[in-house]
C-alpha cells in the first residue's frame, strides 16, 4: 500500500494537506507549528521552548532519501 502511495507521490500526486505537512517538516522539523499566542503561553507557563534544533540533520536526511526534491518541487 505504501509503495503505491510513494509511487503516486513521485509522479506528482500528493494531497495538498500532505504536501503542506511535508514542506513544514522539511523547513521546521515539525508538521504542525505553534501560533504566536501558543509560544507566548508556553513561555508564560515556563514550558520548554519549541525550537528548530535538529533542522540541519533533518534536512540532511531528507536530502539523502530524495524527499527534499519532492518537497521543493511542490
Amino acid at each position, binding site marked *: 500500500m505504501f509503495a503505491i502511495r510513494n509511487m503516486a507521490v513521485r509522479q506528482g500526486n500528493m494531497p495538498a494537506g500532505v504536501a503542506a505537512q511535508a514542506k513544514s*517538516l522539511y523547513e521546521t522539523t515539525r508538521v504542525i507549528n505553534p501560533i504566536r499566542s*501558543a509560544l507566548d503561553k508556553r513561555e508564560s507557563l515556563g514550558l520548554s521552548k519549541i525550537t528548530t534544533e535538529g533542522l540541519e540533520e533533518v534536512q540532511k536526511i531528507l536530502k539523502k532519501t530524495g524527499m527534499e526534491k519532492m518537497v521543493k518541487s511542490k
Partner: protein
Amino acid sequence: MVKDMKYAFFLGCLIPARELSYEVSVRKVMPELGIELVDMKGANCCAPFSIQSVDHASWMALAARNLCLAEEMGLDIMTLCNDCYESLLMVNNILKRNSELKDQVNEILSDVDKEFQGKVDVKNLVDALYGDVGISKVKSAIKEPFSGLRVGTQPGCHLTKPKRIHWEVLRGFNELDALVQATGAESVLYERKEMCCGGPLRDIIDDMARQISRQKLIALKEAEVQGVVTVCPFCFLQLDLGQLEIKRHFNEEYNLPVIHFIELLRMGMGMKLEDWEIKAHRIPITELFKDRL
C-alpha cells in the same frame, strides 16, 4: 526496558502547539505518581503516517533519528500522541527485527552521525499509567472520586491496532476503561466504540471526517454518557472542536464535553484546572465538573 519510572518525553508537534492543557496536566500529574519525564532536546516530528505515504525511507529514518536520541539519553520513550506512538513503535519494532532495513536506515543516519541500535522501548501514556504506575496506585491517588459520572472512552485507533501490526500486546480499550474506573467514573459501553474519530481524514476528505465523528457522537449520546474521555490529541480535537463544525454543517448540537484522561485524573487527585485550561475545551466542561473547577 531501560530504566523504570523515568522516560524520555516525546511531545510531538500537535500537543505543544495546540493542546497545552494536556501537556501541563501530564507534567503536573506524572511526577506525583512517581514518573520522571525528561524532555528530548532536538527531536524532530515523529514522523506521522502521512509522511510514510510520501516516502517510506524518510519516514523510517526520521523516526529512527528520534529513537537514537532516546538511546543517547539511555531512556525509553513515553509519548502522549497516538500518531507519534504508532510511528515510533512501528519503526522501532521493524528495525529491531529486520537487519537489512536497519542497515539501510543506519546508512542514511550515518550522514548525521547517528546509529540505531535498538536499545529502547516506546510507550504511551496508558502504558505508563496502567503498566508502570498500576491501577491500585492510581486508585489510591484519587482523593475525590467521580462517583456517578458516566463517560465513554476513546483511546484512539493507533492504540488499538492489531497485534500483527505492532508485534506486541497493545494497551487499549480495556486498560483505559480500567484507568477511568479507578477514578470512580463509569466507563459506559457504546456502539461504535472501536471506531476511529475521523481525525486522520481531516484536510483530506473533510466531509467524511465530519460524518465519522458525527456517527460516533450519535452513538455516545444514545448511550447517555455525560462526557468523552480520551488520551489521543487528534481524537480530542476531532470530537471537541469537531462538534462546532458539525453544528455548522448539520445544524446538530451534541454538547458532549470531551476531556483528556490525565485531566480527569488530575481533578480526581484534587488538583484544580486553571481557567485557561478550562477554556481550552470548545465544548464547555464547567457544568459537568462544576464542583471541582
